[in-house]
């Protein structure tokens, strides 16, 4: 089912936990709410589930306004960060809970729970209590319990944050597999950019209760709408500059200390004199003397070896520049070395400074 939020607002005293959020999630879409801790993701998710009442705006499922529908009648299943498994019920009864509340027939309950156990690969675990299974298994039970009622929406609140790194990778794949198999519209809350990128069709990046940008993972990474989104989506170099000259598809910009380089003027051309922030991802900074439009010489200050990659911290005049290079065999420069650096105008992303 499709979900549409219109100008949703929720305040806790002076805190605007949700500040005028509008978004639409298509049928079967995997949608993520991504943002730092405290930005309002959980609040938004709980408002969609009906646990919290919004102070303004509407929530619609398939065009039907459900803003005032009480929690238990919403048919949205929420997987809690803490899993919230019922400690006094077996795995089987945990999963059967929603079906019992819907007064399904005993035989139907049995077959659907068994099916759900199979879906999350927990066959034969039905008689255990939640305390007797591992964290990863609890996670699967929570997922099965949510899915078995065939909800209109699956809401996941940081479902992987309590798992260790390896299990997290594994569950990430699992969740995507299950979501595809069931074809259910899903909203995931996470602060983990990798998780959001790996799982989502689209992402809303949230900051202080607002949705700063909504788009595909590639949109978010390659075409960030704000500096906040750019920074949240990975390490960046950024330069505060003024446009000095426009030359067809390019423009030359200068930082206040006179450091000059070229940017691409895509779309509407920037006016001379306008103030911009140029964002440059480290992997776009090349450490070679190729015929780049922007070419400089820098000094290596620091080298961080990461296996497949190496991060270089460079000094470029008064500016610090991060560069990231793949390790393809030849040893890279050492601290203190002088290296050529360069990038193309298209590598920079321009944001209007405010």
């Amino acid at each position, binding site marked *: 089912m499709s979900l549409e939020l219109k100008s949703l607002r929720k305040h806790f005293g002076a805190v605007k936990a949700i500040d005028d959020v509008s978004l639409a999630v298509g049928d079967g879409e995997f949608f993520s709410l991504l943002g730092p801790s405290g930005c309002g993701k959980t609040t938004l998710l*709980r408002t969609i*589930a*009906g*646990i919290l009442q919004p102070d303004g705006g509407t929530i619609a499922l398939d065009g039907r306004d459900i803003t005032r529908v009480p*929690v*238990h*009648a*919403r*048919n*949205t*299943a*929420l997987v*809690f960060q*803490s899993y*919230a*498994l*019922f*400690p*006094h019920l077996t795995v089987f009864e945990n999963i059967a*809970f*929603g079906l019992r*509340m*819907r007064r399904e027939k005993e035989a139907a309950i049995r077959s659907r729970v068994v099916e759900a156990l199979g879906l999350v690969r927990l066959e034969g675990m039905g008689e255990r209590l939640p305390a007797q299974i591992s964290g990863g298994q609890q996670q699967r039970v929570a997922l099965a*319990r*949510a899915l078995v*009622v065939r909800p209109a929406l699956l809401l996941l609140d940081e479902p992987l944050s309590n798992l260790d790194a390896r299990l997290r990778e594994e569950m990430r794949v699992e969740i995507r597999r299950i979501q595809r198999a069931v074809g259910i519209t899903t909203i995931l809350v996470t602060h983990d950019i990798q998780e959001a990128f790996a799982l989502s069709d689209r992402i809303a990046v949230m900051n202080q209760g607002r949705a700063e940008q909504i788009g595909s993972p590639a949109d978010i990474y390659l075409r960030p709408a704000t500096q906040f989104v750019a920074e949240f989506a990975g390490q960046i170099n950024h330069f505060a500059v003024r446009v000095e000259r426009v030359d067809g598809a390019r423009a030359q910009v200068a930082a206040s200390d006179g450091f000059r380089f070229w940017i691409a003027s895509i779309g509407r051309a920037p006016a001379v004199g306008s103030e911009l922030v140029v964002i440059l991802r480290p992997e776009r900074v090349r450490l070679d003397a190729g015929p780049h439009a922007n070419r400089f010489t820098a000094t290596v200050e620091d080298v961080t070896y990461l296996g497949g990659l190496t991060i270089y911290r460079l000094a470029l005049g008064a500016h610090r520049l991060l560069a990231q290079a793949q390790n393809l065999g030849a040893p890279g420069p050492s601290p203190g070395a002088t290296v050529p650096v360069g990038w193309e105008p298209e590598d920079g992303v321009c944001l209007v400074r405010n």
Partner: protein
Amino acid sequence: MILRVFNWVMAAVMLAPLVLIVWMSFTPAAFFRLPTTEFSLRWYREAFNYPGFLNSFLLSLRLAGVSAAIATFLAFLAAYGLVRFRFPGKGALEAFFMSPLLVPGVVYGIAMLQFVNSLGLYNTFWALVLAHIAIVVPYALRPIHAQLRAVPEDLEWAARTLGATRTRTLLRVTFPICARGVLSGFLLAFLISFAEVTVVIFMTGPAYQTLPIRIYNYLTDQIDPTVAAISAMLIGLSLVLILILDRIGGLRPAAK
């Protein structure tokens, strides 16, 4: 070491009167004389053959059972209201619910005597139930409140999102998870109600013979080992309830 011996002596003194009662209840003589080695169940037979004691026992059981059940039910609802909601005057209300602990039995007994008389409820079962509810409510409330606070609210929300109404959530999730606390609360309430002497005596005079009152009346005129047998059974009953309470952790909040 002096302290160790002193502790033994004190512990012995604590138990001495109780041990003596049990001992006496198993001797055949009508007067307690030391040393005695004979063993007899005579006084237990007498106790059970004397309808007064059995009736008193049943009355006490009924009074404690009914009062504790009602008090536990009310306390559970109240604890849920106190733990799960925020509303003005909550602190004061909680203090009010615990306040019967602050009022001495004598004082409350006098007040109830006059109150119950003015309502024409003197010497009725339900007047005693009302008094006992007030007396035991704090004991029921404390463990239930503590346990309820330890139940994550998300469990209830999980149930709600899965289609359970508030009432069904309460019955199917919250209550079962708190069962231990509720049981502790009930047993403590039962224990306190069963043992209550002062308020009952003041409310009814020696007329309404709960088991402790019957023993009280007995002691004021004669001493007969039947009392020992009955007292021994009471000690045994307390012991069983206390062991259960200790097992389910009910004594910890009560002791604090």
